[in-house]
């Protein structure tokens, strides 16, 4: 899928939770939102993108959230 669009979507989700959630919770909330609403290939793609290039274009919170997804993916792959 168009990675620019996924990055844009991730950033927009982050903009909401950046203020909508308690600060300690925000990255987790963004990641949860992506898990609940994004089809796996969308998540896979943004994780791959992040892992390849440090997630250029992602805002800080989105990057943090994608990092969480990436960590989870690694965990489940190794499990």
């Amino acid at each position, binding site marked *: 899928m168009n990675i620019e669009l996924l990055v844009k*979507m991730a950033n927009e989700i982050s*903009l909401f939770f950046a*203020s*909508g959630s308690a600060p300690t919770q925000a990255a987790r909330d963004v990641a949860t939102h992506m*898990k609940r609403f994004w089809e796996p290939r969308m998540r896979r793609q943004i994780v791959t993108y992040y892992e390849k290039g440090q997630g250029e274009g992602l805002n800080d919170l989105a990057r943090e959230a994608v990092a969480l997804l990436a960590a989870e993916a690694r965990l489940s792959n190794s499990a």
Partner: protein
Amino acid sequence: MFAIDYRDCGTPAPRDAGAPVTIDIDGKSVTVPEGTSVMRAASLAGIQVPKLCATDTLKAFGSCRLCLVEIEGRKGYPASCTTLVAPGMKIRTQSEKLAALRRGVLDLYLSDQPPAWAESPAKGHNELETVAKAVGLARTTYGPGRRRPAPVDDSNPYFVFDPQYCIVCSRCVRACDEVQGTFALTVQGRGYDSKIAASEGQPFLESECVSCGACVEACPTAALIEKSVIRLGEPQRAVITTCAYCGVGCSFEAETRGSGAATEVVRMVPNRDGDANHGHACVKGRFAYGYATHPDRQLKPLLRASIRDEWREASWEEAIAYAAGEIRRIQGKYGRDSVGGITSSRCSNEEAFLVQKLVRAAFGTNNVDTCARVCHSPTGYGLKSTLGESAGTQAFTSVARADVILVIGANPTDGHPVFASQIKRRLREGAKLIVIDPRVIDLVRSPHIAADIHLQLQPGTNVAMLNALAHVVVTEGLTKDDYVAERCEAPAYQRWKAFVAEERNSPETMAAITGVPAGLVRRAARLYATGGNGAIYYGLGVTEHSQGSTAVMGLANLAMATGNLGREGVGVNPLRGQNNVQGSCDMGSFPHEFTGYRHVSDSAVRTLFERDWGVQLPAEPGLRIPNMFEASLDGSFRALYVQGEDIVQSDPNTHHVTSALAAMECVIVQDLFLNETARFAHVFLPGSSFLEKDGTFTNAERRISRVRKVMPPRAGYEDWQVTMLLSEALGYPMRYTHPSEIMDEIARLTPTFAGVSYEKLDRLGSIQWPCNDAAPDGTPTMHVHQFVRGKGRFYVTEYVPTSERVNSRFPLILTTGRILSQYNVGAQTRRTDNVLWHAEDLLEIHPHDAEVRGIAEGDWVGMTSRAGETVLRARISDRIAPGVVYTTFHFPQTQANVVTTENSDWATNCPEYKVTAVQVVRVSQADAWRERTALERSLHETHARARDPAHA
């Protein structure tokens, strides 16, 4: 004339039923609530007092003097329609004196009728005839009539006004005022010269009349009568069903002649016992059903291997086998998740349920979505997050108890006309109105109605506006803290309060963004928070934004903070666009949710479905519609089953959609017509109209109503049967013999539907979910003692401007809407006489913007955005502010969505239809412009195919 099987009680039931009162009528004892008229009490006791000027949808008027009765101990002969019952009353409805008086009155009426009045097209349903029989007077004793003949007005495509039959009872005038609220009719002149006139004596079609038909139904004679009754004759049979147009979900009696395949609908009469509409309807539901028999209906399945080929007719067996074969072939080649389906908000609950079951159980993927994605998905997300349930909180009737009505991003008089009539009635009774809309919608100014405050904000700034309103509520101490303390999560409330109280959210600061003076915003906030019951109604002007979900949460925040939830007269209410938007969402049409909004990752829920359906179900969310398009363009999504939805016309950024569809290997379209999407289809399966099937629709108030088959399906199958055929061919047989069995399955698997059955629907008429052991008859008002979520949750709603901004290339903001006579993409209404009111989409442009571009009324203008360009005619209008242009999207030629972009709501991907930066220029040759855009489109599609090696 009212419905053929209706017993008219003459006057309405009292709104606030008082204590029971027992009276005696002709020796019969009757007990009725205080406030009931003697006429109504008699009718309830089975005694029909002769009447002409009374009917039970209108207030008693007391002008015809036919309904006189005798009351023991009272002098004279009071009119029973205007006399209210009192304890111990003894009434006589028949006596020689009464008979003589009534004969005298009727004699005068008949003397004004043409000699052959009894032969009028109203035939046996002419109330004059009923009364003549009752009083025993067949013809007038006077000489020829004194009334001057007047010409017949047949300008309206659906009904005629023939003044020779008019008895000037003013039922039509009162229906237009009281029921519809349009005030188009008057009685002109006096005495024998009095006559009914539309507007300033204009033909109906040119008058302010909106063709709702209330007057036609109220008319006791053949003066106002449907052309279809004149053409086809008196109806013989009535079937109660539900309108298939908008989310009001009006109940109708379909009156027909003939039987079997020869059944003809003579007219649609709104059901006076209908819980959503109480006997009212609009021009679409009442009159625009002709599309069902339009010659454009495609009644045979069609097939082709490539979208460049011509269609060829196929048998059902061949078409279904081909479709199933392709799905399996494509899954074999590209993987299980390379296919998906789209359920329709126009089809029934049972049909939406079956399509999502087909996708999840037979395709084995969660790639199912619904056209509600593009309209109200933010409603589901926003209301579920804050209140705990993805639906509006009230019944329509709740508006009758509202003191302050806040309408935001909705245009009820055009989009939800029958509910608009209920709003208008309440406003005439004195409720206050706040409108938040970039456009001066009709509610802002119309006969006998004016908005107290209109916040005419810039498109795309709803969240800024809601934050500014909340700022005032919080900083001026207008919150209901006790209510919040009892019902909502405290930490989130405190966070929200602190956030909205920040100076940057004040109306003064936000004025620069919204364009609305702060003083006006402050007044609106105070009015909503302190004016008594505050009720919010909103539409797509809230949801179809990049911050659609945030705005819905903003509305819920406001309502919670001011204690405006959980009783009659208040609430947060989405006005749903299509008839079954609520239902299709309820039915598990979203890729991440089963029925009743339960996430697919919830293993307990999944197990329930797996046991019932006998298959393993995927636990990950599937693709949403825009994601399907993206996945198609990257080659990982290759087949789509679309039931009853024209995504090419209705979805944004048409070029993107068509490229995505063109890249697919099998598109299966099931519809009434070869729509725009069918241009990209390989299999076409004929659909059935709402007249041709059984099922249920769920309207904007969560009301489940029955759709009943009036005639057999013209193409041989009801839509749910077609889905079954496909499922069977895929090796996953479904065994339902009637949609009621599908509803039983839904009830079995969905806690909020547990108590719903066809038997109960037949008994109660309709049911508002949740319906279960706790609420066996359904739930008109939600969140009564506590929020469904448990504690209500406030969300901080930071305003984030859309990335769609004006610049020197695209200096205007386009926003879109709809119009009364047309419906959605217009596939149905365009195929009816409704085109007489709206034959094309127009671009509304402010006089100032028009002038600097040299654009005059009616000129062709080209409109360009960064997504595409289209051409349409201009209408100069100051309903919109300078800098904003507005159009509707009912006609495919306009291709309004060619210009809308792929921007979407952050939470749900609901497209941002309401904000597109555009440039508008005058063009001399519409066709040349169109050809150019068509050329560009085909280049674009070629380009897309080139990107897709599998299809090269």
